């Protein structure tokens, strides 16, 4: 390890293990660059893991932002091909309610068509048949090619592909300094959160893809980026109320998108500016819950009597254009900052703004620039090369609930999961069909160090019971010595705290009953609280 660390020399260092960083690492690696991807917590812990999981058709932006709309529909069609196993082709509705202006609909459709989005006006009665959960009061409906996407899976697939092309990934490694020599960024200083070790890594180009935290990275390099942290809160419901994405046909506003994701559905978002210091500990307020719930019920009234599983919030890395320091004109488009041109600081690029939807395009843009700086002339092939897991199907495994579920999660990569023997087939999570084999695969190959990592990779504990028993089972499977037994207990305590963070803002109804059951089991029956010795340093809560 030591010698390897002392020899950290790369073409490109990508900072940030969100979708943008992962996509950039993939693109760079596919163009033959030697890449290091660093992430201070875990893959997709920031805004990437805290959104709707919506594969926008672009329709939402059609009226207000033609460029974003065009980018979205193009990437939408691309991701359906290259990330087949991360996408569920649900389609979406834009509904007009009696309180909305129906005249907006024709403008909306016109602008969609202009952007290349197939928008089709349908009869409200037909909309009710297509999506029985929709508010029956609707007076207008437009069908668009929205879809649902699993951001955790998509990001991991990009990381895996980057690795297959030679990239190195370091999770739980935080950039604590950006190394500048004579107006050039030459690398970064990293801290390994597992053991506290600090070391330098060097590269000719450093790419800042740290989302909202990119402003802090830029600060370390001595340049200023004018970011506008915009908090967006969302609620996850205990089952999948709708099968199509439901949007409001009006200018973007609070809580006007309901997305079906796997076995659940998600309503969001709110949008409020927050201070950068608050971005590490986002909590959903009772007022936000109120707005999300009351507006959500207008899209699908049955949300009112559906159990809310948890509340969570992410922060969009919006950016003010450089000539507008007041921040009045905030763009949601892609922003690539060549700090050599902008600030006279060579070897440093920031990629920000944009949306999860356009991550591949963002990666392409920033990789083009990095290649230009490195004198590499290779075309981008990320739009035509399937991600690992989405290659054409070879052979399929014997049918079982767990095999089917894991195929859904890992696509063709499920061939790496051992099955067929009793030990591997034992189920740890009944809600989501996660087997011991899948847990072991995730630990071995997907950078899993704790239960929350595992949750992001496999959906363990993401189902209706939110980890009631599977968390403890998994902790038992994950430890292999007395030493790791203590770590597993601390990990379990961290997992429970993380889970409670999402439940506490919505602790009423069935959710409160479930919380009491969890406390009764984990504290009363098991005594986890009494065995916990410390909070793990590499733990990051969502």
């Amino acid at each position: 390890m030591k010698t390897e660390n002392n020899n950290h020399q790369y073409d490109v260092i990508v900072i940030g293990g969100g979708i943008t960083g992962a996509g950039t690492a993939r693109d760079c690696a596919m163009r033959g660059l030697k890449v290091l991807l660093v992430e201070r917590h875990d893959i997709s812990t920031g805004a990437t893991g805290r959104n709707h999981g919506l594969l926008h058709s672009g329709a939402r932006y059609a009226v207000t932002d033609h460029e974003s709309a065009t980018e979205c529909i193009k990437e939408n069609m691309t991701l359906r091909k290259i990330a087949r196993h991360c996408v569920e082709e649900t389609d979406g509705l834009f509904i007009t309610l009696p309180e909305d202006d129906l005249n907006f609909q024709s403008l909306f459709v016109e602008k969609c068509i202009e952007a290349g989005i197939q928008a089709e006006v349908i009869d409200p009665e037909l909309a009710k048949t297509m999506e029985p959960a929709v508010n029956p009061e609707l007076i207008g409906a437009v069908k668009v090619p929205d879809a649902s996407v699993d951001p955790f899976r998509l990001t991991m697939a990009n990381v895996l592909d980057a690795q297959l092309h030679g990239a190195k990934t370091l999770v739980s490694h935080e950039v604590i300094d950006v190394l500048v020599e004579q107006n050039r960024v030459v690398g970064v200083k990293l801290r390994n959160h597992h053991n506290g070790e600090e070391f330098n890594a060097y590269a000719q180009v450093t790419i800042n893809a740290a989302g909202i935290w990119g402003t802090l990275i830029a600060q370390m390099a001595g340049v200023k980026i004018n970011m506008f942290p915009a908090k967006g809160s969302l609620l996850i419901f205990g089952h999948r109320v709708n099968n199509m994405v439901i949007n409001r046909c009006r200018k973007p506003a609070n809580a006007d998108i309901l997305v079906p994701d796997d076995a659940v559905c998600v309503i969001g978002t709110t949008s409020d500016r927050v201070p950068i210091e608050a971005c590490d500990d986002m909590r959903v307020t009772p007022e936000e819950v109120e707005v999300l719930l009351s507006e959500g019920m207008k899209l699908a009234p049955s949300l009112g009597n559906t159990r809310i599983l948890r509340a969570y919030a992410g922060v969009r890395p919006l950016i003010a254009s450089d000539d507008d320091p007041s921040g009045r004109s905030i763009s949601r488009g892609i922003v690539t900052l060549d700090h050599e041109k902008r600030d006279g600081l060579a070897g440093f690029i920031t990629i920000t703004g944009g949306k999860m939807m356009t991550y591949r395009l963002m990666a392409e843009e920033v990789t083009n620039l990095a290649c230009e700086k490195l004198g590499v002339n290779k075309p981008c092939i990320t739009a035509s090369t399937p991600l690992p897991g989405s290659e054409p199907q070879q052979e399929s495994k014997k049918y079982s609930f767990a095999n089917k579920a894991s195929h859904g999660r890992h696509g063709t990569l499920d061939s790496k999961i051992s099955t067929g023997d009793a030990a591997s087939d034992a189920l740890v999570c009944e809600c989501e069909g996660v087997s011991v084999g899948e847990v072991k695969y995730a630990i071995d190959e997907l950078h899993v160090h704790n239960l929350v990592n595992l949750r992001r990779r496999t959906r363990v504990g993401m189902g209706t019971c939110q980890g009631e028993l599977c968390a403890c089972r998994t902790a038992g499977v994950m430890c292999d010595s007395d030493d790791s037994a203590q770590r597993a207990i601390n990990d379990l305590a961290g997992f429970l705290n993380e889970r409670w963070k999402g439940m506490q803002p919505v602790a009423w109804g069935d959710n409160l009953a479930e919380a009491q059951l969890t406390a009764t089991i984990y504290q009363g029956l098991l005594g986890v609280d009494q065995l916990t010795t410390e909070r793990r340093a590499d733990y990051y809560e969502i």
Partner: protein
Amino acid sequence: MKFDIIIIGGGLSGLTAGIALAQAGRDVAVISAGQSTLHFSSGSLDLLGCDNNGNIVNNPLNAIASLNASHPYKKVSNVESIAQEAKQLLTEAGITTTGDATANHWRITPIGALKPTWLSVDGMATMQDAGTMPWKRVALVNIINYLDFPTKLIAAGLRNRGIEVDIKAVTLRELNELRKSPSEMRSTNIAKVLERNNLLQGLADAINQVTVDGNYDMVLLPAVMGIDSCSAASTMLNLIAPEASYVATLPPSVPGVRMQTLLRKRFAALDGTFLTGDQVIEGNFQGNKLNSVKTAKLEGERLEADNFILATGSFMSRGLVADYNHVYEPALGVDVDSNSLDRTTWAQLNVTSAQPYMEMGVTTDTKLHCLLGGKPVSNLYAAGSILSGHNSIKLSDAAGVDMLTALQVTHNILNQQ
């Protein structure tokens, strides 16, 4: 239909009251939704494990004096004799236990912690003193691929206390069959397969084989034997050569399910009426009396009684319901704590903090009468986890509150007449 007493709720509290009243010759009906928190049991019953400051309690009887005035034990006239009565009631139902109310002993949790407790079902591994380990060398024997018994965690906990622990695993062909559907590899299914197919000897042979050379002074097994009766559980232990005991598993709890079964059998043997799978949806009050109740399934039927006991449990048992902005008691609509109106005060941010919702419940007068509009209902009592004023997780007092308040209500009813 008319009974002397109708008990709403068939968990530990409701069954305790039902048995005691039936024993006293009363005509009793229990209306039960089905499952109860006994399914999450540790195989032990807690009276008072910790005091208000979180300190371990050695002698529950002494420590009860220091509890808040709101604690349900403050409405129990003689805790010592009622605690003995509870133990006696369990014994008569076929649930023999060790322990008494003057000195807590220790149980081993399914992840290897030790917790103070009052009564442990015979066969469960216990310790008199957490400082002195009763064993030097332990074999911890699991069933292969049974994931609800995390042996590595239990072993680490015991080793931390100076015990040498070897982890072993055994299986039988019949259990492999069970494993073909992985979600069936759960405690109650294992117990049924072992017990109903006469596999205890076979399993004991397998356990003896892996423990014979180890010079163990204790063999610890997952508590997955004996779902229908105590005898299977004790037979198993007798078939193993060294001394052997059970450690609780993750839910469902076989000893807990067994306790529920035996209590129900006892109640039935005393001619009690058990209405299962039903729930009370309405009460017919007149003045300060409850005349009758209606249930979801017995449409049009009024169930009348001289006295009623509400023992439906807390939120997790649906005895209490929290909606968006208030907490209420759904069966009869009796009064709950007044601090239940502001949702933002129900739950603390830190998961291990004392959560305010844990103390919520129905309010009662000193005789455990429920209140309606602030006034006592003269023939309606509350017992068990539905009572307000204590945090059963922080105090480790759930089973004690269930049984002791149930027996106190029984006394109150019998004395009243």
